């Protein structure tokens, strides 16, 4: 019975991730693409050697179908992973219902998967970044994401251990402080990169980075709300009683078992 609900939650997570991906795609297209185009225009005006060869994928395809592929696949994948995290967290992180658990996971994921790594290794537009260091930059970026996620999981476990002694509020503060202390050490000791060209406009860089933040915020907030709504309907008896009357009772019995 449990494995049926894991499957049901996984399907809902991927669906919610797809919906979140669609909204994030709109933000990426309307906020982000003009900045990507501006950066590519700068890149081309500065490079003296022209390849002359044909583009493998045209700019039009990259900014529409290509962008959609990337963002939607990303949405479905993070939705699936977040649903698995939700399965583990539900009923284990305190007295939160499904909707609140989904919202907490989405908020924590935005912070730990994107914002914390972004503050150390921010997103770069085309024309920024030395191709020779891509290996090191990629490795350190994923290291930072992994470190942040593992530390967050450790902080949640630590918080739950401390809760009986300190109370929920103080245990949460202590565990969060531990998380940010170790993240601060990682910020201090991991190498940084400054590969922004001297003549690259600061405003364009700032606007590009803000739009990547808007994409991720849209993605995670939408995911949290949609997935929360779906799980509440699946798992809580009578959550949709107002609209569905007594029909929720049968589903509630199966979900509770």
């Amino acid at each position: 019975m449990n494995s049926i609900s894991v499957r049901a939650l996984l399907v809902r997570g991927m669906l919610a991730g797809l919906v979140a991906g669609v909204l994030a795609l709109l933000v990426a297209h309307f906020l982000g693409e003009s900045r990507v185009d501006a950066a590519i225009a700068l890149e081309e005006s500065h490079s003296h050697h022209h390849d002359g060869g044909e583009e493998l994928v045209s700019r039009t395809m990259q900014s529409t179908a290509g962008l959609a592929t990337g963002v939607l696949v990303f949405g479905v994948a993070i939705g699936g992973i977040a649903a698995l995290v939700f399965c583990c967290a539900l009923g284990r992180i305190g007295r939160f219902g499904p909707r609140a658990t989904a919202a907490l996971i989405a908020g924590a994921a935005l912070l730990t998967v994107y914002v914390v790594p972004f503050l150390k290794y921010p997103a770069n537009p085309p024309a920024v970044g030395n191709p020779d260091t891509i290996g090191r930059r990629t490795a350190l970026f994923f290291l930072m994401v992994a470190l942040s996620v593992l530390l967050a999981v450790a902080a949640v476990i630590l918080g739950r251990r401390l809760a009986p002694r300190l109370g929920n509020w103080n245990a949460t503060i202590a565990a969060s402080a531990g998380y940010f202390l170790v993240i601060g050490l990682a910020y201090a000791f991991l190498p940084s990169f400054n590969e922004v060209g001297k003549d690259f406009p600061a405003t364009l860089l700032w606007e590009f980075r803000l739009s990547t933040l808007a994409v991720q915020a849209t993605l995670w907030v939408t995911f949290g709300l949609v997935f929360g709504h779906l799980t509440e309907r699946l798992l809580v008896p009578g959550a949709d009683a107002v609209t569905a009357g007594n029909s929720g009772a049968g589903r509630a019995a199966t979900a509770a078992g």
Partner: protein
Amino acid sequence: MAQTAAPATTAVPAITPISLKAIAPWAVFFGILMLVLLYFVGAEQGATAVISGEGVHEWVHDGRHLLGFPCH
């Protein structure tokens, strides 16, 4: 069972956690599948490559930049 003893309380009833044993097979299979998807969106043909050429990189180029991955 414990909850039914005090039906009048306004507190949210605790939810029974899903056993980790039930989650494990799903987590292993779908967790890896999702990570592979993320790899192809975020890193393939950048620092490392499973498929030769530039097709994947060029196709998801804009998504990679706007999702915050190091692209090139």
